[in-house]
Every structure is written in structure tokens, then in C-alpha cells.
């Protein structure tokens, strides 16, 4: 009896917070009542290992069944049988403390299930965990045993190390892949694993150094700029650094995949796992070792309940992408085998291996796979999935059911080619849209393009990552595993079944796996999608316009009013000019347009400073008077009535309102009654004339976030209570700081960012009934001077520098 064999034993488990580890701990606690379990948990950044055990292992729904069975005794049983020690398989000696060393040293069996299972892990990360992890565990166990023997003066007693590996360590060939040590396989390249470790570590250092070269940094900065626009130094720096780190990461992923493929493994995961087996065999000494190699581990067949799964794993994203109609093709041959194994079968096999103990003749291998004993054909899987989603479709955001595509089983090259082309085309279209001066709903087309490109990229990455798995033609033998199963008595066979022959694939896919996948993916499974979407927006708006204390900051240009400082200037200037001069001035400004726009995009403050020099010598009182006409003749016509209604709504709710703008004080003066406070630019004045010099820096970029913070504090509020309305990426610092960011008629870049972050988007339009005017030219004032005033003739003073 397995339970008898393991009674009184102390079993250590690494990787207990993972999919397989959680299932293993739960099964041991529930089905092997007399054993003690030590989980080796890496301390989290914020939580200690004990806390991680509680939150990440015991709170998982995996334990619902056990909790139900034990009732009030649950906590007692856990306290008595489950112990947590801090440890990290990524570090030599596992970074154990004294108590941890004592506990681990007292274990009879160690099941090493910790691994970096992402298929696109960076090479060095995978090397540290997958390659070096098992041998680090072995080293530590030997050391602890030697210490104990020395301390207690007894013969060394080594625990049984069961290393969880993957069947794909030995998959690079057609035909049978036997349960043999990696070192004995004829099909696996003989590699010096130590050299690989050194190379991986060096590659990280090299790539990191490359990423810091001035050219690369400049490129990252350029991309950050093109994504965020003039969002301010701090945000751009942060984004640049993100891009650099991501770049290094991507390079390491690429290196990992490249190296793996070059040596005949599907990816870095299988490659590093394979070398990990090698390394363990090299350094194990007398330590008894057994390898258990599962194939693709998927949701539970029956234990602790049918369909239990943890995390979004390999097949799930592919299946969901397919069900959402995004993945229109996936490579593979219909008669190929998809080697899937339910997690509870792997767990049972591990427990059985632990119970019988190590093979005295040396390290052995157990493969837990389904491909030979009960194969699931790729064509069958696709049929089942297609039928399932045809009967129970997912729904799109409009509440329409999604029709799943028909797969034609093309080759991998063709699918990749198609997806690459689609990705490239969408990327180009997106860049084009982003470079156009579009706003509002039209600009959101850009955001939709981005969404589609991201989807295509994801589909491509699935194909690149997993394509190899659906095309694998190795057949994983499991003769030893089956022999082990057959050697069990009837009770054990019932309680710890790991014979894949029991799986009814059709039932497993339709009743167990797909319902579980859909539940985990949190996708729309009813037609009520649209309503919930609308109600989300309604909820946001309700929160923004709640009767709670709030403060609301508004940008001016294109948020409240579709106009800008250049137009205001043109209007004010033409009001004092004769017809010929007016035409000349407006033509000049039009010609300068692109230059001004460029300068504005580069740095808003510099642009304003340079542009306002044009006001040098302008009569201050006259412009103050003119500004009311400017409002009626230009700004008021270009205002968004909904924006003004929104400001007024905030005030009616008792919210304090703030206008933050780089426009000049006299220009915004007619708007003063709308706001509690206005922060804007103002010019020095000498002898009744403006000097063209600003009295202080105009409020742009990060300054706006600080101003909003100050404004909120002055009302006894925090930024969490602040609503910020803005239209451009240069306002990102303010939008990010605010508890309720609202994006108004965004340009494509901001539309994309807002969509990603779930920010509220408003589409405010100019009033349809106002006269349209293409040029901002004033009605000539009565009594206009016949000669242009001097402030308008000193053109050099206004040159944008």
C-alpha cells in the first residue's frame, strides 16, 4: 500500500506554488494521511514564505475539497503536517536558513518540481532554474546528509531525489523515445552543460552592455517618444528604461530559442531541462535519483475535482485565441499526436515513485505521457474543440456570437509567413495612422489597429512557441511507468491511477477541459456582453460625477476648445491690421505651421516661450479688451459644448475646478467664471506693453501633475479624488497622477494608451450650428490703424528659435 509505504515519511517539495506542485501537496495531504510535507518556498518581494504558502497554495481552489472533508480540523492538520521553509533553487545552497537546513536535512524524499515553465523564458533565467536547479538541490542534500552524519556520528543516509523533468527533453527525433537516461539517448546531442551555463551568463552581460550603447539608447528613446509623444522627461526616461530592459529580455529569449533549436530541442525549456538532467547525473554522487518526465500537463481528470487547473498554461491561450476567432490557423498534421496528460495522473505517478523508492541499480526514468498508450490525434482534438465552440460560442464586445474558424492543418512555415505578413502590414498601417493629425473617433481607428496587431503578434508567438509541440513526432514510451502501475494492488490503482488508458478523450475535452479553460479565461459566454460593457462606462462616469468631494482639472486646447495659441495670436494680430497686412500675416503663419508643430511636439514649454515673443511690444490693455471678442468670434465657436457642460456639472456637484493651460492669461480671462482656479502663462509688462517674455515657466508636462496634486491637497483631497481631462500625450503625467483620468478626443497614440489602461474616453464635438471658419482672422476693429502697429512688424522678434 502506497499510504503505508509513505507513512511517517517526511517529503520535501519544491515548486509547490506551481501547477503541478500545488496538486502534489494537496494530494499528499489528502490521500497519504501519515506523511509530513516540507514545502520549499522562495520568499516573495513582499511576503515571507509562510505567507506565500498560505496565500498561493492553501487558498487555491485545489484545497476546497480537502477543506470540505476536514472541516474545522483543516487548520490543525495543516499546522501539524505542512511546514514551510524558505529556499530558492536559483541560488547555490538554496539560500536556506538554519531551521530550513535542519528540516530539509531530515527529509526522506525530495520531489523537485520547481521549474521555469514558460516556453519563452530568457536563456539565462531558464539556465539558472531548469539547468542548475536540480543539481543545486542535489548538492545541498548531500551536504546536509554529510553534516548530519558528522554531527550524529552515524552513517550517511541520503534522501531519494525525484526530479520532475519533461518528456520533451528527448523529442527531437521521429519514433520511440524510450524511458532512458538522457546520457544514454542516441538522439540527444552531447553538450558540456557547464559551458552552456557560462555562455548564458556571459550572454546576459553582453546583451546588457549592448543595450546601454548610445546608439541603442537613442533608439529606445526614439521609440519611447514615438509612443508617448512629448510626455515629459520623467515618463520618457521611465519608458526608455522599460524598453531597454524588454529588449535585453527579448534578446535573451531569442538566444535561448536559437540555441535550443540549433541543438535539436523545440525551445529553451526542453533544452535547459535536458541539460539539467545531465548536470544532475554528473554531480549526484551517491544520491539516489529518479526522473519523472510528464508530457504536456493539463487540467485534472478527476482529482481534486475534474477540470482543476492553475494558471493559464500552454494549450489554453491557443484554445481561447481560436475561440475568439483570432487564431485562424495553427500548424500541425491531423494524424499527429498531441501528447497531453492530466495533472492528477502525473501527481499519482510521482507519489507511486516516491512510495517504491529509488532503484538500487541507479537513476531511472519514468515517463508519464499518453501518446503511446492512449493517443489523442491532433485532428480529433481540433474537431472536438470546433464542435464545442460552435455549440457554445464566445461573444464579441457587441454581444454577437463568434464563429470559430475552420483549420486546414497547414505547415508551420506557411502559417508563420501569413502571420508575419499580417503583423508587418498592421504595424505599418498603425504607424501611418499615428503620424496623421487625427483626433477622437477617427484616431481610435489607430487604437483598434494596434489591438489587431497585438492579436496577430500573439497568434504568431503561439505558433512559434507551440507549433513544435503539435508537430512533434517522437512517441514517448512509458513501459516502466505502466509496469509500476501494474505492480500496484487494486486499492492503490484505484486511489492513485496514472494509467492514461483510463482517459476518454472526448469526455475529457468536452466535459472537463474546455469548460475549465473557458471559466479561467474570463471571456464573454453570453450575449449580454454589450450591456455589461455600457454599464462599465456608466459606472466610470458615475464615479467621475459622484457627489463625493472631487476636484477636476481641465486642459484647454482640444479638450475644452478646438483651437490653439497660434490661432489666438493670429486673431488678435489681424484685428489690428489692414487687409493686405492681414493676408500677409496669416500666410506667414500658415507657412510656418509645420515648423511650429514640430517645435510644439518636441517641447511644449520651449515652443510657448519662443512663440510668445511675438507679443513683444503689444498694447496690454488693448489685448485684454480684445480677448472678449476673441472668445465670441473664435474660441467660443470652437468650444465643445459638452466640455463646458461637464465643467459646470462638476461645479454643480460641489467639485472644485481647475484650468491648466499654456495659453496666456488674457486669452483665457473670458473663461474665468467657469473655474475655481486657472493656472496659465502670463507675460511681463513694461509701460503698458507686453515684453514677450513669460513671467514664469508655462505649466506643461510634469508640472501639471504637481499642480493637480497641490490643488487637490488645498481642498483637503488627494490625487485619488482628482479627475483630469486632457487630449494629448504631453498630459500623460497629469493623467497618470489623477484618480480619474479622462481622455478627450485623443490622438491615435493617446487613444491606444487610454484603451490599454481602461481610461474613460470622451468624444466631444464642436457645436454643429456655429459658423465654420478655416482661418482665425478677426473682424477688423473700427478705427483700425492704417499702418500696422510696431509689435506686428518686428517679425524677427517672433522667430521661433
Amino acid at each position: 500500500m502506497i499510504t503505508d509505504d509513505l507513512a511517517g515519511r517526511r517529503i520535501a517539495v519544491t515548486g509547490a506554488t506551481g501547477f503541478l506542485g500545488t496538486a502534489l501537496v494537496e494530494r499528499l495531504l489528502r490521500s497519504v494521511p501519515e506523511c509530513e510535507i516540507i514545502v520549499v518556498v522562495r520568499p516573495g518581494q513582499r511576503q515571507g514564505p509562510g505567507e506565500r504558502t498560505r496565500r498561493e497554495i492553501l487558498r487555491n481552489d485545489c484545497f476546497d475539497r480537502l477543506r470540505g472533508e476536514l472541516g474545522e480540523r483543516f487548520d490543525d492538520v495543516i499546522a501539524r503536517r505542512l511546514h514551510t521553509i524558505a529556499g530558492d533553487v536559483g541560488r547555490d545552497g538554496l539560500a536556506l536558513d538554519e531551521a530550513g537546513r535542519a528540516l530539509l536535512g531530515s527529509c526522506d524524499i525530495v520531489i523537485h518540481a520547481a521549474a521555469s515553465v514558460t516556453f519563452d523564458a530568457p536563456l539565462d533565467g531558464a539556465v539558472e532554474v531548469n539547468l542548475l536547479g536540480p543539481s543545486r538541490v542535489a548538492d545541498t542534500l548531500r551536504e546536509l546528509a554529510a553534516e548530519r552524519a558528522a554531527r550524529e556520528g552515524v552513517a550517511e543516509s541520503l534522501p531519494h531525489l525525484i526530479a520532475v523533468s519533461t518528456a520533451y527533453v528527448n523529442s527531437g527525433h521521429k519514433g520511440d523515445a524510450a524511458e532512458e537516461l538522457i546520457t544514454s539517448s542516441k538522439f540527444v546531442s552531447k553538450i558540456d552543460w557547464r559551458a552552456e551555463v557560462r555562455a548564458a551568463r556571459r550572454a546576459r552581460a553582453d546583451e546588457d552592455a549592448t543595450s546601454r550603447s548610445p546608439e541603442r539608447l537613442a533608439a529606445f528613446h526614439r521609440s519611447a517618444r514615438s509612443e508617448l509623444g512629448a510626455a515629459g522627461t520623467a515618463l520618457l526616461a521611465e519608458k526608455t528604461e522599460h524598453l531597454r530592459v524588454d529588449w535585453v529580455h527579448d534578446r535573451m529569449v531569442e538566444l535561448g530559442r536559437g540555441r535550443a533549436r540549433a541543438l535539436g530541442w523545440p525551445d529553451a525549456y526542453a533544452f535547459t531541462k535536458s541539460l539539467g538532467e545531465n548536470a544532475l547525473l554528473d554531480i549526484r554522487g551517491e544520491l539516489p535519483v529518479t526522473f519523472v518526465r510528464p508530457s504536456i500537463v493539463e487540467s485534472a481528470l478527476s482529482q481534486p475535482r475534474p477540470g482543476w487547473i492553475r494558471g493559464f498554461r500552454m494549450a489554453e491561450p491557443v484554445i481561447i485565441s481560436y475561440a475568439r476567432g483570432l487564431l485562424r490557423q495553427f500548424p500541425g498534421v491531423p494524424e499527429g499526436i498531441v501528447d497531453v496528460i492530466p495533472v492528477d495522473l502525473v501527481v499519482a505517478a510521482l507519489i507511486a515513485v516516491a512510495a517504491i523508492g529509488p532503484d538500487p541499480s541507479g537513476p531511472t526514468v519514468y515517463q508519464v505521457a499518453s501518446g503511446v498508450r492512449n493517443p489523442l490525434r491532433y485532428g480529433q482534438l481540433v474537431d472536438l474543440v470546433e464542435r464545442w465552440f460552435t455549440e457554445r460560442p464566445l461573444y464579441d464586445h457587441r454581444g454577437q456570437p463568434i464563429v470559430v474558424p475552420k483549420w486546414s492543418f497547414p505547415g508551420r512555415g506557411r502559417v508563420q509567413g501569413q502571420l508575419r505578413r499580417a503583423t508587418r502590414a498592421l504595424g505599418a498601417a498603425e504607424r501611418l495612422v499615428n503620424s496623421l493629425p487625427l483626433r477622437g473617433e477617427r484616431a481610435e481607428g489607430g487604437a483598434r489597429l494596434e489591438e489587431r496587431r497585438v492579436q496577430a503578434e500573439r497568434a504568431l508567438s503561439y505558433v512559434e512557441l507551440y507549433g513544435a509541440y503539435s508537430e512533434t513526432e517522437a512517441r514517448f514510451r512509458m513501459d516502466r511507468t505502466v509496469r509500476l502501475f501494474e505492480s500496484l494492488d487494486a486499492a492503490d490503482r484505484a486511489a492513485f491511477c496514472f494509467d492514461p488508458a483510463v482517459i476518454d478523450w472526448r469526455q475529457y475535452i468536452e466535459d472537463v477541459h474546455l469548460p475549465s479553460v473557458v471559466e479561467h479565461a474570463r471571456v464573454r459566454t453570453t450575449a449580454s456582453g454589450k450591456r455589461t460593457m455600457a454599464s462599465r462606462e456608466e459606472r466610470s462616469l458615475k464615479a467621475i460625477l459622484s457627489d463625493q468631494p472631487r476636484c477636476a482639472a481641465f486642459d484647454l486646447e482640444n479638450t475644452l476648445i478646438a483651437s490653439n495659441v497660434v490661432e489666438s495670436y493670429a486673431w488678435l494680430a489681424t484685428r489690428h491690421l489692414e487687409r493686405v497686412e492681414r493676408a500677409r500675416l496669416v500666410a506667414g503663419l500658415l507657412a510656418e505651421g509645420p515648423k511650429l508643430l514640430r517645435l510644439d511636439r518636441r517641447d511644449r514649454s520651449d515652443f510657448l516661450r519662443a512663440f510668445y515673443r511675438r507679443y513683444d511690444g503689444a498694447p496690454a490693455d488693448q489685448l485684454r479688451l480684445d480677448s472678449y471678442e476673441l472668445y465670441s468670434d473664435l474660441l467660443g465657436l470652437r468650444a465643445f459644448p459638452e466640455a463646458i457642460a461637464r465643467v459646470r456639472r462638476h461645479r454643480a456637484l460641489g467639485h472644485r475646478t481647475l484650468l491648466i493651460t499654456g495659453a496666456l492669461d488674457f486669452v483665457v480671462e473670458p473663461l474665468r467664471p467657469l473655474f475655481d482656479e486657472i493656472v496659465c502663462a502670463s507675460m511681463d509688462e513694461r509701460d503698458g506693453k507686453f515684453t514677450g517674455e513669460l513671467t514664469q515657466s508655462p505649466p506643461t508636462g510634469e508640472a501639471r501633475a504637481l499642480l493637480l496634486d497641490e490643488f487637490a491637497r488645498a481642498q483637503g483631497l488627494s490625487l485619488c479624488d482628482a479627475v483630469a481631462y486632457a487630449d494629448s500625450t504631453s498630459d500623460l503625467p497629469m493623467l497618470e497622477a489623477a484618480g480619474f483620468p479622462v481622455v478627450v478626443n485623443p490622438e491615435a497614440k493617446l487613444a491606444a494608451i487610454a484603451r490599454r489602461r481602461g481610461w474613460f474616453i470622451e468624444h466631444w464635438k464642436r457645436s454643429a450650428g456655429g459658423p465654420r471658419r478655416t482661418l482665425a482672422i478677426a473682424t477688423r476693429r473700427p478705427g483700425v490703424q492704417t499702418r500696422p502697429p510696431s509689435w506686428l512688424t518686428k517679425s524677427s522678434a517672433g522667430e521661433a528659435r
Partner: protein
Amino acid sequence: MSPRPGFVLEVDRSTPATLIWHGEGFRLERLPVGSRVVYGPEPLAPLANSDQAIRHALDNPLGDSKPLRALLYPGMRLTIAFDDISLPLPPMRPPDVRQRVIEAVLDLAADSGVDDVVLIAALALHRRMTDPELRHALGDRVFEAFAPHGLLLQHDAEDPQNLIHLGFTDHGEDVEINRRAAESDLLIYVNINLSAMDGGHKSVATGLASYRSLKHHHNVRSMMNSHSFMDMHHSELHSSNWRMGRLIAESGVKLFQIETTLNTDTFPEQLGFLQKREWEWSLRDRASFLATSSALERMPGELSRRIFHAVRAPHDLTSVQAGAVEAVHESTLANLYRQQLVEVSGQTDVLTMGLPYIGPYNVNSTMNPILVACLGLGYFFNLYRGKPLVREGGVVIISHPTPWEFNPVHHPSYIDFFEQVLAETTDMFEIEAKYEESYATDPWYVHLYRTSYAYHGVHPLYMWYWCAHALQHLGRVIVVGGDRAAVHRLGFSSASTFADALELAEDVVGRDPTITHLHVPSLLMADVT
């Protein structure tokens, strides 16, 4: 040949299609056989010498008034108030009547050595006039002489410093008017009496008043009790104004009233077909109708609006009278009726009307949906004396595109009223009780009324009240060819063609209803017996 009087045509099979205004355009509709079409009298011949007639009126005042010359003396404070941009419609070719009259008045004042003279545009709660609009109304000479010196003012109903409360009428109504006007030694009011509603005591009591004063007659109750507000003897609006006007006189305000009437020569020659009877159209009229309407169809809305608002009417003076308010107004009405009154016998089940691009409150601006309702159900419906043209429970069919469009500078509170209030209720009493005060006192609207060119915050509500009598009287209002959403918001029904509208009307008034079409232009007033 003397101009022909107005008449009622009965449509038979030989009647050509009738021209119907449709906003910034028009359409020809064949009305069902048996329908009636009410045409106004042809334009009266103008006065032979306008300037002479004006001088004559100033020298020969009506009622209990001395000639103007005798009222002027050196060192006096003289204020001349004049009607604002809402009159006449469309704006007239220069010289404007106001310019002619004011120039004559100023000549007399100069002769008498009067040098403290101020001009005030009597805006009431209307938008301020722009400089070019003032220049058009007053002429270059007057404008240049007054504007640069700050002597050309526009009445500001929200300037507490420049208002004066003169007391209460015997009905407890506040009388609060422009301080400068009230405290002058003589106030002269220059009217253009386009319709029978204008002038009389209403000129000062409304044109120079504040919200506090106006609300006593600009309210739902008054409008429901004005049958019609074009007929001062049956109009609560006018009764209230008359009480106020008499109190103003009792308070010692010396008023010299000048009223003028215009003929209905409304459109320049190229649009002459608009004021002809369709069966009398010449080949040229037909051609210009075709050319104009097909050009308008192809034109963007913005452009056609600009073109129409540039139209200057050839209106000419048919009478001018001056002196004591009530005597002057009586004479004015007689002259007005001479031009506008048409006898119509019996009411109709269905009244149809085409609304033009312009009303009193969208000169150089946009006719928004509230103004459409106001023009149709306020002004046109009320163009009657005696009984309404349409029977109680009858139907009015309006032809107008009714776009969901607003001029954001001229009509800011209209936008909010339409988007926020009418979305909730169209009930006048509810609106008056729940929203009037907040719209009237909203600081932002007050700011825009005073510093920009916005109608007062409460103005859209008044325009809605203007429809009160019609909405109480009618069984249904149908708009042909209007923006469905906007029409629905107003609480009216929408139809895409005239035929559909008549079908809809039958649901209310029964099969084979009597139909009467109010043919505008030209402006007329139905004397319904």
C-alpha cells in the same frame, strides 16, 4: 395699379403647386384639392418721401404730446433707445429705418443745443449686437459719432448699477428699467413695428427692462392667456406691459414714442418669386426658382445659411407716427393691418406652414430646434385676430429641416436647455417651476450675456413658453422633413413628406380634414371670423 388685398385661395385641380419655405430652402407642394391658401396683401406703396414724413411726424405728434422740437433744450439729458437686431426680418437694405429716424432726431437735438445724448440698443434679454450690426442699424455717421466715445450703449439687464426699480403695478408687478433711460429728461424710443406684437408700452417696459420685471409677463400663464399675443386687446402679455408702461409714465419718465411700419416687400429681385402668387410666376420667376433651389440643394448647409443671412430686404416705410405712446400705437396698428390683415372665414382642422431660415432670434445665426418651435407655434400660429386659424384640437404641420444645431456663442443656454431639460420634460409649468430660476441666475450665462453675444440664460425657456397657447390648443404638431431626433425631443411628430404628415394628422382630426396653408412670405395676419 394699387396693390391687391390679401385673399384666400381654394385649391382646385388647376392650381399650381404651392411654394413652401423649408428653412434654408423651399419646396413646391401640391396641396389637396379643397385646401385653402391664405395670401397676404401685396406690398403697399412706400411713402413718397420718407425723410420728409419722419420730420412731419416729429413736428406733428399724436395724442397728448408736444412736437419733439419743443421738448428739446440745451443742457438736457436725452436718451434714444432703439429696437435691436431682432427687427426687421430680414434686416433691411440700408439706410435702415432706425438710421433715418435717429438722424432726424439728432438733427433736431443739435438744433436745440442738446449735447448730452446717449443711444441705447433695447436688447431686453437678447444678445448684444456686434459693431457691424450696430453700424448697419444706425448708419456710419451716427455710429462713428457715438460709438468711439462710449455713447452708444446696449441695454444690460444684468447690470444692477444701471437699473432702477420704479415701483410695482397695481398687479404687484416689479417695474425695473434702464437707469439712464429712466433718469433722462427725455427718452425717445425708435420702433420698427414689423408685427402687431411690437411697440406700444411694450417697447420700454420690455426692451429696457430686467429679468425681475420681465418675468411678470414672460411666463406660461401670460402666454396661455394671450389669444393671441399679436392682438393686444386679448393679450395678457400686453395688458401687463400696458400696466407697466403707465407706471413708468407716472414715475415721471418722459417718453416720446416713434413707431414705423414697413411694407412686405421682403426679398430682392432675384428671390422675387418668393412673394408672388405661384400661378402668376413669369418664365423668369420659374427659372430663378429652379436655379436657386437646385443650387441650394447642392450647397453645404453652412454656405446656404451664409447666403440667406446676407439677404437684405427692400422693405420700405409705409407710415411713421410719433408722440404719446397709446395714440401712436393705435395709428401704427391701423397702418399695420392695412398691410397685413386678411379676412378668413372659419377655422380649419389642419394648418400647414413652411418656416423660413430666419426668425427674430437667429439673425446672423442658426435656427435651432427651439427657435423652430417658437417661430411656428409662437409667431406663425399667433398671426391671427379673433379665433386661431386652426380649431381647438386641430393639427399644425410645420415644414422645416429642424437640424440639431446651435450657435454656441449666441445660444449657449439653448444647448443645455435642449440637451438637459427637454430631454427630461416638455411640460411648461414643470419647466418654469423647476428650471427657470437656475437658468435665469446662472452666473456663467449671465457672464456670457454681458460680455459675449449670448442670449440671456432664461431666453430658451421664454421661447418655449411662447408656444404655450398653441400647445394647449392643438391636438398634434407634425414636422415635415425635420431631424427626427430633434423633432422627437421637442415632443412633436416627424413625417418625411407632406402626404405622410396629412395621414398622421387624420389620426387626430379624422378623415378628409379641412386644410389651410399659411402662405409666408409675405407676413400676414389672419382675421378669422
